[in-house]
């Protein structure tokens, strides 16, 4: 695999992570499904994992960047696993709406597992790391778009979390935006 193909695949991966984060924001803003503290931390986990992919786009593919993505995905996956286990016994309730029969924290766990698997598959090919040829121009638009979207979503999540939780910790079951209610 050439470094260019690796960069293209990383750009697609970062767009996929950004899509997950964008859908979470749509669910929050359009359907009024306010995120719980663990849900917010799972979003942060996607940023932790996506940062490794972003490093691949900016500095070129390196094994350490995939390591960053895997560590971030393990941290995020642990949080989603904890939330799954909270509701695993029938009758213990659930949090939020379900999508195709699974709740968002279950989908998050699947996504984190997919990130780890994707990074592991990418790490199998060493040729991307021995880059001799310069990066081609045609790949610049997609990585740049992916990075801009990722950064925009990070800023949007800062605003959303401050509006929801204010300066402190979030309530376990938020019903309204704390900042808009004046505390």
């Amino acid at each position: 695999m050439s470094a260019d193909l690796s960069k293209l695949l990383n750009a697609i991966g970062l767009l996929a992570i950004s899509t997950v984060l964008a859908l979470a924001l749509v669910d929050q803003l359009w359907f009024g499904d306010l995120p719980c503290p663990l849900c917010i931390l799972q979003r942060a986990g996607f940023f932790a994992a996506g940062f490794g992919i972003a490093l691949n786009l900016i500095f070129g593919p390196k094994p350490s960047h995939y390591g960053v993505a895997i560590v971030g995905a393990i941290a995020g996956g642990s949080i989603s696993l904890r939330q799954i286990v909270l509701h695993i016994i029938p009758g213990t309730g659930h949090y939020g709406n379900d999508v195709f029969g699974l709740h968002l924290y279950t989908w998050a766990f699947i996504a984190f597992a997919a990130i780890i698997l994707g990074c592991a598959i990418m790490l199998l090919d060493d040729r991307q790391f021995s880059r001799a040829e310069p990066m081609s121009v045609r790949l610049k638009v997609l990585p740049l778009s992916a990075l801009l979207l990722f950064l925009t979503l990070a800023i949007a999540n800062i605003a959303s979390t401050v509006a929801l939780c204010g300066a402190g910790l979030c309530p376990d079951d938020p019903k309204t935006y704390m900042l808009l209610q004046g505390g």
Partner: protein
Amino acid sequence: MMSLPFVLFACAVGAAWMRQRGVSMGFWALGLIAMLVLFRFHVTEVLMIQL
């Protein structure tokens, strides 16, 4: 406080964009620590998974 990981990860992406790899990795590590500390704060409910 819950927005702290997002702030740190955004700073990490910003620093990487400015080609400051070491600084960006530092922001990422701080963001990860902040995320895990906040996770610890919110994991207060005892799991009931006895069958």
